[in-house]
């Protein structure tokens, strides 16, 4: 079902937990659908110095969170914003079709955290509708 990479990141997730000195937090997903991702970031000089996550969700949700945090750690905000769900999937050697939405959620969680930071420093952001938009369950969510 899952690739070895996914299983590795699920069973041994990187960057898990709350970040004490976070200055950016983003949360996407919906408990009703069974997926919530929360990303914590410590951003300095436009660079993501540290990042962590908490996730309520399936194996793929946890693995994509873990991988997404790895991929943006140490990156500039701009680079992080250009992270796509495809990149997350590729880094995990693929996901089963029904789990693709987890990678979308991870992409959106990263964006949500960065937007949260931008707003906190007074920058304007074009806010997307996150909650469950990307989730394969969205027809079922109110």
């Amino acid at each position, binding site marked *: 079902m899952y690739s070895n990479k996914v299983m590795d990141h699920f*069973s041994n997730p990187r960057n898990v937990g709350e970040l004490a000195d976070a200055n950016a937090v983003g949360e996407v997903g919906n408990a009703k659908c*069974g997926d919530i991702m929360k990303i914590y970031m410590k951003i300095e000089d436009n660079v993501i110095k540290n990042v962590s996550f908490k*996730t309520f969700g399936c194996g793929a949700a946890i693995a994509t969170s873990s991988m997404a945090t790895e991929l943006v750690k140490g990156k500039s905000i701009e680079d992080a914003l250009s992270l796509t769900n495809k990149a997350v999937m590729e880094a995990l050697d693929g996901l089963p079709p029904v789990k693709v939405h987890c990678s979308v959620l991870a992409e959106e969680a990263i964006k949500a955290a960065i937007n949260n930071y931008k707003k906190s420093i007074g920058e304007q952001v074009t806010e997307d509708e996150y909650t469950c938009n990307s989730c394969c369950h969205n027809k079922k969510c109110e």
Partner: protein
Amino acid sequence: MKQIYLDHAATTQLDEAVLKKMMPYMRDYYGNPSSIYTIGRESKRAIEEARDIVASCFNCKNSEIYFTSCGTESDNWAIKGVCAFNKNKGKHIITSNIEHHAVLDTFLYMKKQGYEITVVPVEKNGIIDPLKIEKEIRKDTILISVMFANNEIGTIQPIAEIGSIARKNNIIFHTDAVQAAGTIPIDVKEMNIDLMSISAHKFYGPKGVGALYIRRGIMIDNLFHGGGQERTRRAATENISGIIGLAEALKLSLENMDYNNNHIKKIRDAVKRGIEQKIPYIIYNGDPSQRLVNNINFCFRFIEGEALILMLDFKGISASSGSACTSGSLDPSHVLLALGLPHEIAHGSLRLTFGRDSSMEDVDYIVDSIAQVVDRLRQMSPLYETFVKEQG
């Protein structure tokens, strides 16, 4: 690593004694039972012996037992067969909202074919109130189908009462006894059952074989048209070794029912107690007493079931969940939702179903493993974080 199988409701391991009984029919007695020469007659004889055994297990005549390929086929045959045969009499059929998909999806299909379906909700404890079924009966009701025991939460339904309501109203009554057969004594006569589905792999028999009990006089359309097998009601060359295996497994299950049930219940209860002692914020699903002795079903709040199952698998424990992710559907199990649980809680369910091969020695390991995994996932969970913060 030690493997601990706690998913006996999904399937069971074929009993070695059953396999031994099947082997000659896989190897030597391969003759087509419809043939009139010696090796064909030997197959035929073996099948009829198997039919006698099954009939005696349910207190019916051998001519009322029809072998099928699985519980799903039996369910589909019963429901579609009743509907097709009685379509001029009426088009209203009744079931419960905790049926297995083999019944529920067949009902939904019949709805698409122009039948009217009524899905009666169970009570909060996962048990149906027979009076609520009675209330739904109409002049054109042709079928009531209610499962004997639920596959997720193990609740046992008041089958005899529902049966007598159906009989009184002259409506055909089908029960999906796939989870009950081999674990609960079933007397189809006393319980007023007209049609009953079973599946061998749920009671240590082989996969790919089941049966449908059809009470004498109950007319239903065939699902498999073709040759004259099964007294012209279910065509296809018989799965001889499978049929032998089903009968042997059922016989052994009944012979050892009390012993096995005691054994299993002790372990089940110990694991349940352990979980309740060690893990906070849990919900026990389904009536605690009117349920299969082998079944536990908990929701662990703030976590999701697939992750739970996978992490238990790392510890050698095979279990299941009603989370959307494991069911392959968008929603968590309809059974858990039928109990009134909100989606987010239903996602965090764990079903443990014990079996003959379960051991008291494993209880501590099972409880500890679950406690560890639940704790680990909660530590990762933003829902738990929020909850803890709110608690102050």
